[in-house]
């Protein structure tokens, strides 16, 4: 569809992708591409002025365009275009002159019996998304189109379309702006698919393009799955629809790959078809076969004109882009010394708390970013309750040895519990967390050695495990106030 395919052979475009683990089963690998539909966070619909709002009373957000009434004409929402551009730029796409086409098909939730969608010329083309571990997923296109209404199936077996007595249609969602982001068939592991969806969601939220709630359907994932012997040509693929959580993305792909492998091994053909992921039984089921080939009769929408954002608009949108999750992880990683794809860095950025952590590092009282990261990761409420300056003070106390790690954790808990009006020094004092002087600590260490000669002997003989008993005794004697690091240092000192 896009003008110039980036690869002839999918394997050699991003050579570093080969360094990443591939899922394999019975000598086959999976080839996966994802199509993700996201609803844009506009006030109004793509082509009309009724509200784009989830959860309203049925058929209240309707107008002649939304209902496809005779004589109605679409007018494009500028903000939807701008949000699509933001997303495209965040995905390293070329933002380009684009046109709208009609995709003709009859379905009761599609009011005009055609969907207005970008076909030959999408607004975003040829980009990529780097996963946190460095795996690069090629993006073929990210085009604008309108959403459909919603059908509810009444009667029959539990709201299923098959066997229902009739259906009811709500057009509130019809005409809501969507961007459909289509990847190249680069994905080789269910975890990559999951990571892609998570990372895409983070980007969507970061640039303000969508709230990307899979549970509300504002982000919907379809997966194209095929399998092959490594290095062989692409095989027939199946499209899996209705995958509505990150976890399901991994499960559905793995199930479908194994299903196809079983078919290949049995010498049976894989039929190109659309399949439906059933969360309940953990299987994919035939939705419809592509044999009765769709004939959408695409042609340029005569009621709309070309959209050509031009360099000025594109550069303004680019300049206004907020830092993306990957950049933010890199910044936090650099300041904290933790790897960018470590759990702490990933989680804290995901929770939008990286700025808070970094603020600790630049606080006047010289906070420690690594310690702040640890505390914020463990206590998600910190950032909303405790000013960065106070956390900075605490990390300074901790890094200087004024309080131990255990004590610092207790102080964090009490700050969150409401003691945050007091500064950490005051809380430490109130809790009796005084840093011990060295002579006091040394006498406690000596006492522990005296009490446990066997452990001491083992420790001196190089059995590291024996240290635990000695440190534990000191901690007990100090009622937890001793700094574990200082105790270890003293023990090592005495051994030599």
């Amino acid at each position: 569809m896009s003008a110039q395919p980036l690869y002839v052979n999918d394997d050699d475009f991003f050579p570093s992708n080969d360094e990443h683990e591939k899922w394999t089963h019975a000598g086959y690998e999976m080839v996966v591409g994802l199509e993700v539909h996201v609803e844009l966070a506009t006030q109004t619909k793509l082509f009309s002025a009724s509200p784009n709002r989830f959860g309203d009373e049925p058929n209240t957000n309707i107008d002649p365009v939304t209902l496809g009434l005779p004589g109605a004409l679409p007018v494009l929402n500028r903000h939807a275009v701008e949000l699509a551009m933001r997303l495209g730029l965040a995905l390293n796409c070329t933002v380009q002159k684009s046109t709208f086409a009609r995709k003709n098909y009859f379905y009761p939730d599609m009011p005009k019996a055609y969907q207005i969608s970008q076909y030959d010329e999408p607004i975003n083309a040829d980009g990529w998304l780097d996963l946190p571990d460095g795996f690069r997923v090629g993006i073929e296109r990210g085009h604008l189109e309108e959403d459909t209404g919603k059908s509810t199936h009444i009667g029959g077996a539990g709201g299923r379309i098959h066997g229902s007595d009739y259906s009811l249609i709500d057009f509130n969602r019809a005409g809501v702006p969507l961007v459909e982001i289509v990847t190249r068939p680069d994905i080789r592991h269910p975890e990559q698919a999951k990571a892609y969806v998570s990372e895409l969601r983070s980007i969507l939220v970061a640039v303000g393009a969508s709230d990307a709630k899979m549970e509300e359907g504002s982000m919907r994932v379809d997966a194209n799955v095929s399998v092959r012997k490594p290095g062989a040509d692409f095989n027939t693929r199946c499209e899996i629809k209705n995958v509505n959580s990150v976890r399901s993305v991994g499960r559905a792909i793995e199930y479908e790959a194994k299903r196809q492998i079983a078919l290949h091994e049995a010498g049976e053909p894989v039929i190109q078809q659309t399949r439906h992921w059933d969360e309940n039984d953990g299987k994919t089921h035939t939705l419809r076969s592509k044999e009765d080939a769709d004939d959408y009769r695409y042609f340029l929408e005569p009621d709309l004109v070309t959209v050509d954002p031009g360099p000025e608009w594109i550069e303004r949108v680019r300049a206004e882009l907020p830092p993306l999750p990957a950049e933010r992880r890199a910044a936090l990683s650099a300041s904290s010394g933790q790897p960018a794809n470590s759990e702490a860095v990933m989680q804290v950025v995901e929770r939008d708390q990286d700025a808070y952590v970094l603020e600790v590092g630049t606080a006047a009282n010289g906070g420690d970013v690594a310690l702040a990261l640890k505390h914020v990761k463990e206590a998600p409420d910190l950032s909303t309750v405790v000013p960065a300056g106070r956390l900075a003070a605490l990390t300074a106390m901790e890094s200087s040895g004024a309080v131990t790690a255990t004590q610092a954790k207790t102080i964090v808990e009490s700050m969150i519990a409401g003691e945050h009006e007091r500064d950490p020094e005051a809380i430490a004092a109130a809790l009796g967390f005084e840093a011990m002087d060295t002579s006091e600590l040394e006498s406690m260490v000596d006492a522990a050695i005296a009490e446990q000669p066997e452990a001491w002997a083992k420790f001196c003989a190089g059995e590291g495990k024996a240290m635990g008993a000695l440190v534990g005794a000191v901690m007990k004697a100090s009622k937890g106030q001793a700094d574990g690091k200082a105790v270890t240092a003293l023990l090592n000192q005495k051994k030599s």
Partner: protein
Amino acid sequence: MAGGAVEGVDSLDRVSDRISTADVSKVATLARLTLTDDELATATTELGAMLDHFAEIDALDLDGVEPMNNPTNLVNVMRDDVVGETLDRDEVLAAAPMAEDDRFRVPPIIGLDD
């Protein structure tokens, strides 16, 4: 017409390719129209005659001609993202062929491509 049907134009992608009953039947299904056998035969003859006439454009050299989709050269016609008037639900549903529970009612959805 100025051109008239041209002899010797021989290409599979040309207008002069004849339409078959099967083509017309497939087209009717795509367009959601039912044709009796008689209507199908008549439609095939009529469409065939029209396509014969339209074959005059097979003679034209159209290589490099930019297709014309619309007379306007307008670009970037857009509106602000501001909520406007909506239709009254009850009025709209009252005019619908069938409605129930604030929604449009249709018979069971089977036999449709999704």
